[in-house]
């Protein structure tokens, strides 16, 4: 087990240092690149917070969808094969729900303020509700 402080705490300190001490000393291209760098660190902070849970859930969904197990990379390669060869992947509600949820988790890390992501929240929530209904019916 790694000692504390944890990685997100270290990144937070570095990000604050860049924002508060370095940014005021820069202008032009360097000031722009620093803002981009700070946003990149924020992305890493979100990934550390979200990805472990998101990856676990993604793997669970894939195992159920494909009836197979393996690493996340292997499962995704199988999923691609399924999408490429299945008769009607676009009509497969469980597949679409999986893709929406996986993509939503990616966006929550990569670009949580992306307008199309924000505008899709209601649709994503309705898919999650639909899945909960399906699961209840299965039991």
């Amino acid at each position, binding site marked *: 087990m790694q000692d504390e402080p944890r990685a997100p705490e270290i990144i937070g300190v570095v990000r604050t240092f860049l924002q508060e001490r370095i940014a005021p000393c820069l202008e032009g291209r360097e000031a722009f*690149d620093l803002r*981009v*760098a700070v*946003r*990149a660190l924020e*992305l890493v902070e979100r990934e550390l917070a979200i990805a472990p849970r998101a990856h676990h859930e993604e793997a669970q969904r894939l195992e159920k969808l494909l009836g197979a197990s393996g690493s996340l*990379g292997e499962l*995704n*390669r199988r*999923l*691609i094969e399924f*999408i*490429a060869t299945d008769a009607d*992947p*676009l009509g497969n509600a469980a597949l*679409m729900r999986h*893709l*929406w949820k*996986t*993509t*939503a988790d*990616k*966006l929550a890390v*990569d*670009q949580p303020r*992306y*307008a*199309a*992501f924000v*505008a*899709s929240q209601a*649709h994503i929530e309705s898919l999650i509700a639909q899945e909960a209904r399906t699961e209840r019916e299965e039991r």
Partner: protein
Amino acid sequence: MRRRAQGKRVQTEGMDLSDEARVIAIVREAGVPAPEVEYVLSTEDGLGDGFIMHRIEGETIPARILREPRFGSARQVMARQCGEILARIHRVKIEALPPLGAFDADSEVDRLTRSVETGANPRPVFVLALRWLRQNRPVEEGRRVLTHGDFRMGNLMIGEEGIRAVLDWELARIGDPMSDLAWLCVPSWRFGRIDQPVGGVGVREDLFVAYEAASGKRVDRAAVRFWEVVGALRWGLICESNLAALRNEQPISVERAVIARRSSETEIDLLRYMAGLE
């Protein structure tokens, strides 16, 4: 001035700069606003491939065009002007043009398929989008016309009164005119204004109606939709190509390194198209 260093091709997709200069001269004659080419570099100049254009004042940075109050009236007319300008581009006689690449729906989907297959990340959404494209390819074969190939915010120079010039002609090709209308409406150029599909400044119908009035040709809405999905996928793959740059070229700017993470934006855009939300 637009120039490539001698013996060095920066872009592999585009045409020779001397050909681009000829295309610009021809579209200008057809009434398309584009910078006048003053001089094409020759071998004796020793500066490589290139040409010098007449300087036009204006703004190309989308964030400024979309937000600054001084472009308020320009924003009102841009969607319509885009329709009129595209109609003029698509009317150019192709016999007069230098030899250009050609494309159609099938060749474009094949090209994207190869690109998805060789991509660095497994992308189920991209593979599904390819299935959607094969199921939704335009019923009628599109006309074969000169297309700009990269007609979008960023390549339009804007003044307070509206569009002053269409820039960057190196991706011009012969193919379906609907692809140009569609590329302009791809979500990636809306900069947050997703309810304004035409580059963040207007709605599709304004663009289509102006195009139909200026060209006398009907806009095939379903074909535009097909080409928008092609466009979103194309942009997603372009974003992802920055990953290869990150791993192969050192150093790379922070900006380019993180652009690879913007492919996921196009994934949600593609899901929205396939769910009928776009």
